[in-house]
């Protein structure tokens, strides 16, 4: 205010109010120490910057919602019922998609015994997604628990390492097949078998991360400052783990779908009366040498590709954005 005036006398230019005692305001001292950083908001911000991932997320949400509401939409057919042509009394076998010569409308055609492929496709996607999500959640629970114990409790380290070495060296195919053999083929059997082989990787990742960050300087500092360990775990460790955990969970879904396809391929998957993407692929494979019947392979293959790629990309992008180092 006074800067532009020509200063004739030094004492005139000084504002006497500057020499008053300022009032001590406790809330103002907090202002510089406090930032409105929120882990989840920053994660969301970074995630939203990736247009492709957002588009895939929207796509996958639409697919998931559609698989859930599809049976309740009007004019949907049953995925397991065999449709019979009322005029000839024969089944609608291998009807082409939207074949105009057939009086009844099959959007994606029918399979070799006259079931509606459209309904089977969505029912199968529902089954496969259910398996994938269930495996992902169980893997996360078991993997995080064991991984945390493995990394945090020094005494358990040697024992769990040995168990891990043994379990990791048994080919996972053997475990998958023997378990599905011993138990009855059903959805829960498949989920159980996949969890038995899947938790290893999650546990190892969590353990390695905990080992790396538990004794970092900032954690030592927190401990020295008397931060309760609950707060250390939730504020210092967990944000670093979230990215890995979410990545593993997101990747568990495509790999579970792939495993289910594999089990169906070798004939040890779900019973054929439960439609699943693996069963649909196996059905389609049997007919793929006939160019007219290839649609029975393409539709499930396309859905599998869309679902697995989406989860893969979303998982990776989310893991990057949940990593606090990428936050502004």
């Amino acid at each position: 205010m006074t800067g532009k005036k020509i200063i004739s006398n030094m004492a005139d230019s000084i504002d006497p109010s500057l020499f008053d005692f300022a009032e001590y305001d406790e809330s103002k001292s907090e202002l510089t120490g406090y930032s409105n950083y929120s882990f989840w908001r920053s994660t969301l911000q970074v995630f939203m910057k990736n247009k492709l991932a957002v588009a895939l997320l929207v796509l996958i949400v639409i697919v998931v919602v559609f698989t859930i509401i599809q049976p309740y939409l009007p004019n949907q057919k049953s995925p397991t019922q065999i449709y019979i042509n009322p005029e000839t009394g024969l089944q609608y076998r291998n009807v082409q998609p939207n074949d105009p010569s057939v009086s009844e409308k099959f959007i994606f055609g029918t399979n070799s015994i006259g079931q509606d492929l459209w309904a089977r496709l969505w029912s199968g996607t529902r089954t496969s997604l259910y398996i994938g999500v269930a495996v992902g959640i169980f893997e996360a629970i078991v993997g995080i628990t064991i991984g945390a114990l493995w990394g945090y409790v020094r005494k358990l380290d040697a024992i769990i390492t040995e168990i891990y070495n043994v379990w990791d060296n048994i080919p996972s195919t053997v475990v998958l097949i023997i378990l599905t053999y011993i138990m009855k083929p059903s959805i829960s059997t498949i989920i159980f078998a996949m969890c038995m082989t899947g938790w290893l990787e999650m546990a190892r990742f969590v353990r390695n991360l905990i080992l790396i960050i538990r004794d970092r300087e900032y954690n030592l500092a927190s401990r020295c400052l008397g931060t309760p360990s609950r707060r250390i775990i939730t504020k210092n460790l967990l944000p670093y783990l979230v990215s890995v955990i979410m990545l593993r969970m997101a990747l568990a879904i495509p790999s579970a779908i792939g495993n289910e396809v594999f089990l169906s391929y070798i004939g040890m998957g779900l019973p054929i009366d439960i439609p699943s993407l693996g069963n649909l692929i196996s059905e389609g494979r049997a007919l793929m040498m006939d160019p007219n019947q290839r649609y029975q392979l393409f539709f499930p293959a396309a859905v599998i590709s869309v679902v697995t790629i989406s989860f893969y990309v979303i998982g990776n992008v989310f893991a990057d954005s949940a990593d606090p180092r990428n936050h502004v």
Partner: protein
Amino acid sequence: MKYILTRLSRSLLTLVIVVTVVFLLMRMMPIEGYFGASFDKLDEAQKMAKLNNLGLLDPWYIQLKNFYTDILKGDFGESITYRPKVAITKILGDKLITSLRFGLASLAVSLVVGLGMGILMARFKGKFWDKLGTVYVVGANAVPAVIYYLLIQVYFTNIFNLPLLYSKTDSKSWILPILCLSLVNIAYYAMWIRRYMVDELNKDYVRLARAKGLKNKDIMVKHVMRNAFVPMVQYLPASILYTVSGSIYVESLFSIPGTGGLLVTAIQRQDNTLVQALVLLYSSIGIVGLMLGDILMAAFDPRIKLSQEGGSR
């Protein structure tokens, strides 16, 4: 040397436990499997006689003891149901060689293509080629392999007029299986070499080399690549050895008489001796491969010392 010996003895212990676990798991399977289609035709006494012949009625610890004494003598036993009364080593011999041949060919292809692709991707990071490569890597990793195998089999046979099924004499029929086997590995090698190279590119010594005015090509070849290869080298022996285990999908799609589906078939038919031999083989391959990898890595990079507790993983 001492490190290798201790590690070897520990690995042997792991191996024994692994085989024992699988051995016991196989004994938990229902006995119907040993008879196949003839199960309903036989009466109770005949069944018991057969099981007794196979030594399956003994308590499990006696079976286990017999199994290990046989193995120490170098006798892996005879197949029970897969090809009855044929020695395991004879069954495996030809199949291993077939799978090994395909595996090595595809490994060579995927190393050359995959590493080349990864290096290009790292070189043009963020540009068009990098993005195209990433699309390929994501696709190959996310989508279940069988889907693109099926599509390749359906279309490539028509477009390029290649034979649909494998035949030993027709070398043109080897192209598609090798291509299929390589697709995933190309993505794998490209992804990792790119990641390691990008990591290395951000390091100080690269900046120093730039500041000294070295040519970009020299920096890449002499500095970045040599360092980026070190972690890759670790997995090389294991992946070479693992080629003997074949691929279930590729071998069944192109009807190659390899080891790929053998384990699955053996479990389904409950051929205990065959399963045990295979698990023993695959597990020891895994353990030996990892160890060779660590040793090779130490040889490649003098900074890595194996004798430290925990190794360099």
